[in-house]
């Protein structure tokens, strides 16, 4: 019973793409075939026991019928180690995992909001959602934006890319939520808009609030710490308004923003 979600994935290419990011293309035909925007994979960065756990990464694109793309930022031990993996080697890959973004309906105008390193799953969504898409990108400064190539790719895929930086070094000065709010306020026909957001918790809470104020549906991708990715360890819990927790890896990572208990969430997680 070899599962079709556990793979030795061949590294097709692996290159730095600027601003601290790497682009990793993996050959994993079954995963590539079934992957949906918003889903993720767990990658083991080495065969040693330190680091021990696999790392979760969103799928940023399906490149061909057999390959998928990961865009990752080097932030710590695991991602640093991952950078040394060479094309031709293979990595243990588990996925696709989780539930993706609900598929935009025909008339929907998807509004994507990315903060920090939350853009990869949204890139895949843009790839699938077609040209009506709006993308909001926010960062502290120009250097913290996604790699220039990715911004370009977004510009090709989407109708419009709106950029904001705290210091005004690129796009408008402000946060992505500031310019999102302004955009929503001035947009007249809001009934087809749906928000899809991924980024730090504080930003997701803010987006969620704006969505509620404008009465627009909003889906957020919650990047929690994960051990198993399979719903077994109960480590990736997201607090629900209705009480209790749901698992980001199984019932998520994408949730309807109204389901989530943002008060507790924001309180506890201001770190990220």
């Amino acid at each position, binding site marked *: 019973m070899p*599962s079709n979600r556990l793979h030795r994935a061949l590294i097709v290419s692996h290159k730095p793409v600027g601003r601290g990011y790497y682009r990793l293309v993996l050959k994993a035909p079954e995963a590539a075939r079934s992957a949906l925007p918003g889903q993720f994979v767990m990658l*083991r960065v080495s065969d040693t026991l330190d680091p*021990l756990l696999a790392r979760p990464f969103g799928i940023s694109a399906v490149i061909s019928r057999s390959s998928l793309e990961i865009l990752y930022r080097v932030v710590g031990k695991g991602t640093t180690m991952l950078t040394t993996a060479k094309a031709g080697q293979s990595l243990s890959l588990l996925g696709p995992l989780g539930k993706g973004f609900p598929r935009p309906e025909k008339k929907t105008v998807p509004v994507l909001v990315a903060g920090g390193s939350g853009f990869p799953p949204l890139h895949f969504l843009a790839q699938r959602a077609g040209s009506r898409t709006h993308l909001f990108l926010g960062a502290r400064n120009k250097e913290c934006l996604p790699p220039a190539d990715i911004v370009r790719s977004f510009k090709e895929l989407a109708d419009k890319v709106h950029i904001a930086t705290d210091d005004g070094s690129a796009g408008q000065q402000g946060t992505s939520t500031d310019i999102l709010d302004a955009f929503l306020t001035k947009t007249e026909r809001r009934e087809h808009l749906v928000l899809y957001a991924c980024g730090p918790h504080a930003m997701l809470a803010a987006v969620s609030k704006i969505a509620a104020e404008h009465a627009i549906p909003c889906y957020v991708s919650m990047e929690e*710490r994960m051990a198993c990715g399979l719903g*077994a360890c*109960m480590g990736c819990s997201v607090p629900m308004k209705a009480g209790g927790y749901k698992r980001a890896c199984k019932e998520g990572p994408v949730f309807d923003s109204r389901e989530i208990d943002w008060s507790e969430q924001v309180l*506890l*997680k201001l770190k990220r």
Partner: protein
Amino acid sequence: MRKTKDNKSAIRKETRPDRIGKSAIESPDLSIDFAGIKLKNPVLTASGTFGYGEEFAEFVDLNKLGGVIVKGISLKPIKGNPPPRIWETPSGMLNAIGLENPGVDVFLNEKMPYLRKYDTAVFVNMFGYSLEEYVGVAERLDGAQGISGIEVNISCPNVKAGGMAFGTDLRATFELLSAVRKATRLPLIAKLSPNVTDVTAFARAAADAGCDGLSLINTLLGMAIDVRCRKPRLANCTGGLSGPAIRPVAVRMVWQAARSVSLPIIGMGGIVTGEDAMEFLLAGASAVAVGTANFINPRATLDVLDGIEGFMREQKIADLREIIGKVDAG
């Protein structure tokens, strides 16, 4: 599969003269009789790391396992601790899940029917916040079908009351296990805490209370701090350390316990490979449970099983009894 509980204390099974010799080594006998429960092989899943089986059925044919020990069950549903609940450490991880579970009734109605479809032993890990709750769960499990045994968790470091509070006090351990013993005829396995000065005293208390086996070890109590935020990495502050990092402590405790009581032992703590499992068997465990390794490799249980079988072939060992407890400690 019939799950008998006669001949309780025995780890042994009848000799089968037809299986001795060369042919036996080509397909070594991995079956064991654990506290009267027949297991196809000694590889189980550690509680809390394999869900209720279903989560892994895509990767592991549950029929191939010696048994499944399910995530801990309590009388009422439990919400668990706020996140963050896990943190990685060198060759290990900390968790403070807080025993989130749907409660014994939902477990019996929604999870057991799935597990009953398989021809594998099911052990239900359970706990309570009071002696009465422990007894309550045991009573409900007693009547249920398809349960091979109960693993009583008296060692969870992640809940304030209950759990470890019982498992680190000798008298409380004895009283609790005695009460649970009265509440069920199912084989009882006490899951001991490693966070004690002398694990053998607790092993003896479990034997005296009438338990049929021991599980060890549960996680070591640990803590990690985010030095920039100056906050613990876990919302619960402390958590349980598991994974390869703790294996030397686990092997030591299994060895100590095996020398001090005659109860069969399920050994666990950092098992990733067949060789790791062999260390526990040689130290005196009759079976092993694979825990954290399931997270880094969903097929870890089967890899461990293959590893044990391959090792037995390589070493020309026909029967597990030639291994269990056979470390030559001088």
